[in-house]
């Protein structure tokens, strides 16, 4: 199955900007470890993963009455703190959850990707 994992909130992790350089190094190490854990796991492929700009740089796009409307900021409060995402192929939820445990303990949302090609 293919999953989109949204790093949706800091949870108990200190916000990035408030972390000391050492703490940031540690976090980077965890991201690196996650990449390696994925590479080393059978049936798992990390298809994409990026860090995202701050919420204040996000733009929300809505279509209302046939008109495209843009507003400043993220879509809703829940994604205010969204810091990044991964697109991962994994055999099932348990393998994915096991791997995500390697990352810094962010709050995450895991959404299976639906195959609409068939």
């Amino acid at each position: 199955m293919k999953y989109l994992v949204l790093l949706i909130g800091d949870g108990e992790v200190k916000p990035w900007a408030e972390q000391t350089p050492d703490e940031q190094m540690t976090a980077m190490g965890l991201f690196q470890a996650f990449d390696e854990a994925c590479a080393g796991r059978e049936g798992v492929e990390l298809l994409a993963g990026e860090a995202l700009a701050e919420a204040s740089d996000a733009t929300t796009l809505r279509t209302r009455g046939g008109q495209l409307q843009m507003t400043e900021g993220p879509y809703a409060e829940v994604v205010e703190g969204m810091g990044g995402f991964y697109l991962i192929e994994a055999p099932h939820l348990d393998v994915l959850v096991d791997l995500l445990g390697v990352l810094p303990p962010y709050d995450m949302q895991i959404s299976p990707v639906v195959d609409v090609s068939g």
Partner: protein
Amino acid sequence: MTPVDPLAEVVREEWGRLAALLLARFRRLDLVEDALGDAVEAAARAWPDDGVPDRPAAWLHTTASRRILDRLRTEAVAQRVQPLLVVEAARAEAGRAMADPGALVEDDLLRLVLMCSHPALAPEAASALSLRLVLGVSTPDIARLFLVPETTMAARLTRAKKRIVGAGIPFGVPDSSVLPGRIDTVAQTAYLAFTAGYSPGTGTDLLRPSLSGEAIRLVRSVLALRPGEAVLVALLALMLFQHSRRDARVRDGRLVLLPDQDRELWHRDEVEEARALLDAPALRGPVTRQAAAYTLQARIAAEHALAPSAAETRWEHVVGLHDLLLGLAPTPSGRLARAVAVAEARGPAAGLAALEGVDIPTTHRLAAVRAELLARSGQHDAARAAYDQALAACRNDVESAHLRERRQSLG
């Protein structure tokens, strides 16, 4: 005793194994349960005339498999592709090799249990699904247990099955680092079903102890797969202590509280079994927090079960056990239960003091206990106010009637 119906017997004993086998083979969670249901109906028609087959479970398996194959053929003709349940790689390989079919089937049953009570499922959905798929309890009975309309329960079960496939919850056994936590969840799932049967309903369904008994059966079947699993041993003891009182809990259509129960009606054999479980070697080593909490709750239940009369309950022991339990999980409902014990051991004033600072906004129980303790300590005005508060929050007719009665008895 009515003669044993061989079909009911095989359904009771084998439903979970059959469901697990069919799931491993066809990976169609949406078809397996209906196909098994159809097979049972077919057996009910055929067996009385043709006689019970030599291997009744194999007969049901074959019949259910045919139903599923029919459906798959129809789908193939219509060129519809349905999503498949994820079966863990180890099981898929084992299925091809078939080194030891017996052990494989037992493992499949464990896979089914773990899938049904996966932590990514809502607890109530997991509970209902476990009763349906592992034990074959009927949807109307599960609806009765949880006091919801049958259509609501049917929809809940369908949603849960869809979610398992959609979210990629596997039919598998996780590695040993994760397994203890997952067995804890299985225990919570079973206990939720158990307590649902003792949540007061209306009329003849005031309590539904026979359905609570199904939750005990669930624990017994998982314990047979994982002997000596501490959390299950402790939970079984707790359930048996509570369940042993079932015949004394209702009299003339009304709830009877513990101190007023006729202890002659308690099932002594179950009390003895529970007591023996508490001495099991499984509970002597280091256990999970969940197992420790069930053990302490079972020891509290044991104090009640073994006291010769309500008046002779060793209340100071009960308080001590509550203190240990609060050390594990300092919950408001735990503090409420402790306060009740404190009141019995040291008087209503001490109980009221122990209630201080406890806040449980979602239930009438806190106000009800406070009212009772105020009444006992002679503070009738304050007691009346607390009864009113409890009545305003109480959603159950039976309990409301009880509270109104207590309030009126204050004069």
